[in-house]
């Protein structure tokens, strides 16, 4: 796994690590995560709401996990042993996954967009209630397969 080049003009070495580990944790590609339009918002939000040392530790562990894994299986195993099995790390990983899937951090939405951009609505082939309305009668047929 190679850490991608900087995509956003974020002057922060760890940002790419954050995006790559988010990809591994959520099952959505960096590009799909980018399309929420919230990557930078989320990153800076975590920086402001998590003890900096703890976040840096999480990103350092993540960086090691990413750098020493060359296949998907290796990456999965490394995440299990280094992050999931490590209570402090797994807690942050859960928060990061929840942020992407629901748009919340410790139960609160980051902003009105974070609710609408929750990935959970994509995996159920639906849309966030009250936004991205699919149109009249769409609910009467099987949804378009988003995995095609």
């Amino acid at each position, binding site marked *: 796994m190679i850490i991608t080049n900087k995509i956003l003009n974020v002057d922060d070495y760890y940002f790419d690590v954050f995006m790559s580990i988010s990809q*591994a*944790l*959520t*099952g*959505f590609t960096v590009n799909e995560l980018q399309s929420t339009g919230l990557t930078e918002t989320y990153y800076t939000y975590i920086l402001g709401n998590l003890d900096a040392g703890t976040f840096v530790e999480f990103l350092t562990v993540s960086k090691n996990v990413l750098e020493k894994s060359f296949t998907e299986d290796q990456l*999965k195993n490394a*995440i*299990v042993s280094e992050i*999931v099995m490590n209570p402090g790390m*797994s807690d942050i*990983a*859960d928060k990061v*996954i*929840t942020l992407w*899937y*629901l748009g*919340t951090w410790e*139960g*609160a*939405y980051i*902003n*009105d*967009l974070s*609710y*609408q951009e929750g990935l*959970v*609505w994509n*995996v*159920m*082939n*639906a*849309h966030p*209630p*009250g*936004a991205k*309305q*699919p*149109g*009249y*009668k*769409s*609910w*009467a*047929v*099987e*949804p378009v397969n988003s995995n095609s």
Partner: protein
Amino acid sequence: MRKPTHKKDVIIVGTGIAGSLIAKLLTDHVYSVNGKKFIHRTAANLRFKEILAEIDFESVKKLEHLPASASYQNEINNSKDRTHKEIDAQAAKKNIDPKTLENRIGLELFKTYFFLEFYHEISILMYEAGLEAGVELDSVSSMTNYTEYMRTFYTQEAKVPNSPYPNLKQAPSPNVLDVAQITPPFPDKKGYLVQFGPMAFASDAIRVGGGTTLHWLGTTPRMLPNDFRLTEKYGIEINKPDSSDKSPINWPIDYDTLKPYYEMAEFEIGVSGDVSKQEYPIDESMEEYYGNYVFPMEEIPQSYMDNQIIKGLKDTSVKLNFEEIQLLLVPSPQGRNSAPNLRYGNTKVIRAKYKKPGYSLVLDDSEKEEYKALGSIWNPYMGERCEGNASCVPICPVQAKYNALKTLKKALYKINENDNLKRNPHIEIKAQSVVYRLSVDQKRISKVHLRRYTSKEKTDFIEEFIDTSDSIVILAANAFENPKILLNSKYMVTENGRQVEKTVANNSDQVGRNLMDHMVMLTWGLFPEPVYSYRGPGSTTNISSFRDGKFRSEFSAWISPLDNWGWSWPAFSPGSDLSEFLGQGLFGTDLKEALTYRLSRQVLFHFEIEQLPNPNNRVTINNQYMDALGIPRPVVHYELTDYEKKAMEQAKLASDQMFERLGIQDFTKYNATDPNTTVYNNVRYSYNGAGHIVGTHRMGSSPDDSVTDSYCKSWDHPNLYIVGAGNMTTLGTSNPTLTLSAFTIRSVESILTDLEAHF
């Protein structure tokens, strides 16, 4: 204390669907001076055009020439002031000679007031407890305000029915988040309601412009004929207040009486549905029940999930304790825009027809225009069709779902001769005005007392009252607020030479009693195949089989909507599913797959169980419990009887059989810690509120056992009407909004008759 404001013909407390319907229907009519009766505005406009055609306008040049009767002199003078200011402003802006403009505007004014020579307008004042922003219905303000509701909804953690709307200290609302178990004798008082239990009342409402229709789901079934005659058909009797004597349950009207008004309500709300697909377990044929009739708009499509369930359940039956019941899966009529039904024909007008000695309302279809769906209040081209936002509760972003602001806007704005909307000057709404007490003089309601708070942030208020001795007062607040205001209103009478204290409208001792709701028992599980829930309106299909039947002598009837929104209501999905899988250590593609599997198969069945009227289920007030404005909070005593509990047992039996037949893996769990839970025959059942707060000022045929007559008029006071779901004598298995709308529309016949004395 300020001096009383100018007299009005009608005072309406509340801008929800009941208040708005009355305001709209009254402002649609004017009093014809020559005919000595009320006629519809369109008829008056036509006649007035003929009158104008006979006038030589060249001779009318100056404001001073207005042939005004003294009664309008005040209004004219005010209007002149306004007009002169406007003339000066416009003249300055456009650089025109004020004189030229004066002639033009003067002519407009002349027409306005000349009209009043022939036709008198009904003057109306409405009070709304919610914020001013919620009743400003011009396009810009209403859109700005609604956008704020939407933004709030997006950011609320718990997206409960009240979540998008202002949570006011000065006019608090019951909220489902405050519902908790009660340990008698200690009340639960953390919310707005003071709940003594033993069961918590589980439903909410919202005090905001447009009322609770802002977050209603929009399902609009009519009541069934037998719902109006439970005693006659099933021998059900209930206790008299504070006694073990039994008394029959008497609705003063039956289904046939209400039928034409159901059609008017369906027109005003804009109901989508297919009459030919309605099937109910009733003795009457559907021809008798609906007659030769179609809904204004075509059926809202049933969801993909509905169709998978229908495939599995069609033509099967379930076995309850003593009978086989055939399953009828019916597309639900809804107050939600689809495509207009061409067979419905042109648009209609609800018009009062004079028939000695009063009025009857008719649904007149002499209009030339075809029927069109009415979109949002800020832009009629938005929300002309349901767009599948799937957030009807708590808020429809495009207002394709009906809400009472649409009706209120029709009261506030009338179409002028150029087909433009023009603000109707004869109706006024004062918001941030919390009505809390009525005064009585010689039986008449003589004053309405209110506290007007000055801002959203502060609880400072101005004490006001309005003299209503020559007005008609209409309480249309909601089934908690109406009885609360009444119980807070005392007056003295002399009986047998002694002074006796009475409570307004309460000679029957029924005010605040018979509080009812539907017990919503939910059952949920995983369908064997993906059904892709979380899409479409909240519910598009219901099982009507249990809405009526012999069993009603033993236990409640119920309606079973299928819910399109997965397990979000009972289990807080999808958030809870994510937590569960994270707890199992899932991440990446495994997590994604687990979520996809779980969330695309979630089904929810919902059993809305009828509650019988019970005089002990009641709203009272108590000076110990006051809100921030020093107004009493509703104090609620509430319990279930075995009649409802047995229905939960039977509904669960029905659910189990349907789940088994469909291969649904049952995930239903009722916990001892649930806020609303009960044990019957050693089995636990939990339920939610349906948001159906009804019964607290029941209508009846006799002043002895009811608060109002069938026209929602108080038996005890000649100028007081009390309208809303509180008038329902029983609840039936329908969502109450359509029924309350029907009898509220009917009440206008009596209001118009009473108003004649004012003109």
